[in-house]
């Protein structure tokens, strides 16, 4: 399949960015979205042009590094699927795909599609954890956790910290801060409870 890409190119956080149009030919539908970018970048490097900078790490859907805003949605058209697990079969031959970085003031652009997500680290450092010596761990079965709390805890644990929520919703960042603080408060409270 042949794809037209409109990709956000920006040299650094201070310079103005713009959309650049690229044609990518002979794309296999089994390629992941990132592999399609690998093919494009290999070609750009061979032509002596500047490749498109983007973040990636595990490429198996668990690290959350592949932050791409695809056709107006973080991680593209599928539900609960990161960009690296999005395959070209989700698109049609001849499609034009618009790719932007995470769009949020909290995530300044480093280059092209790569953004600085250290604001998330600052939230965690500000109170997302606590170190309390509580002695030996109690048998987990003897601590009853209400189902609602357990479900909320699981939701927090399932987050891979990719930042899509912030990119999608400008207000979410405020919620994220409030949410992490309430978790911290919960941990502190339960730690104290156990000590007593």
């Amino acid at each position, binding site marked *: 399949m042949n794809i037209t890409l409109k990709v956000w190119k920006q040299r650094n956080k201070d310079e103005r960015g713009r959309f650049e149009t690229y044609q990518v030919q002979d794309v296999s539908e089994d390629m992941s979205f990132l592999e399609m970018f690998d093919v494009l970048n*290999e070609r750009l490097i061979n032509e002596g042009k500047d490749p498109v900078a983007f973040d990636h790490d595990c490429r198996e859907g668990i690290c959350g590094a592949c932050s791409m805003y695809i056709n107006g949605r973080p991680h593209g058209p599928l539900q609960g699927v990161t960009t690296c697990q999005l395959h070209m079969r989700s698109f049609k031959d001849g499609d034009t795909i618009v790719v932007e970085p995470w769009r949020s003031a909290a995530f300044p652009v480093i280059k092209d599609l790569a953004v600085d997500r250290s604001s998330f680290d600052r939230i965690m450092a500000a109170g997302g954890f606590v170190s309390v010596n509580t002695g030996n761990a109690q048998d987990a079965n003897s601590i009853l956790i209400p189902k609602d709390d357990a479900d909320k805890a699981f939701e927090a644990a399932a987050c891979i910290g990719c930042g899509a929520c912030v990119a999608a919703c400008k207000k979410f960042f405020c919620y994220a801060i409030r949410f992490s603080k309430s978790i911290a408060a919960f941990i502190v409270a339960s730690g104290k409870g156990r000590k007593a």
Partner: protein
Amino acid sequence: MYKQITGVDPYHSPMMIYPAVHYTMGGLWVDYNLMTTVPGLYALGEANFSDHGANRLGASALMQGLADGYFVIPYTIGAYLSSEIRTKAISTDHEEFVAAENRVRETLQKLMQIKGTKSVDHFHRQLGKIMWEKCGMARNAVALKEAIAEIQEHFLELGELMCMDALQRNESCGGHFREEHQTEEGEAMRDDDNFAFAAAWELTGDSQWKMNKEELKFENIKIAQRSYK
């Protein structure tokens, strides 16, 4: 998940299964406190060699990261820091610092001045192919020697060291299968008389290594060939 990746529904078509490199076994040598041979430099999780020997399975690699981070390093690093805390800020004018900085700068300059035309991906693929085909799950002496020669010509030496290590180990053990060392039924054939040790390779010069043997002693169990039968 399978359907998401392949686009094929495994309820209707058989799953296609094939081996792939997920990560490498082994890693930096560390002592029981997880400190490397460089004083004050600690290596945790998958970066070190310590817990898993010749095998490191998927979930156990993650567990090693958690165990090292939660249960080992908080209790061991303090011993080093307690005396280091009195050390004042070290000047970057120190002659060792200047020498190290120059050494790195020269290496980088040398690489940049080549003005190469090939991408990082190009080297990654080529070296990856050599390692996959000649130092993969099943390996033999002939192919390993070819790989060493090919890597010496074009590539980074870490792959070469992995091939050298595989070549000197004349047995099949854990995830490392030497084709020359198998039973009649094609199972891994161990040689615990000669290879009951972890190999710790010490860098002695540019692309020069010396092997140190760390004997493996088992007091409560008897090591034996693994069998799924």
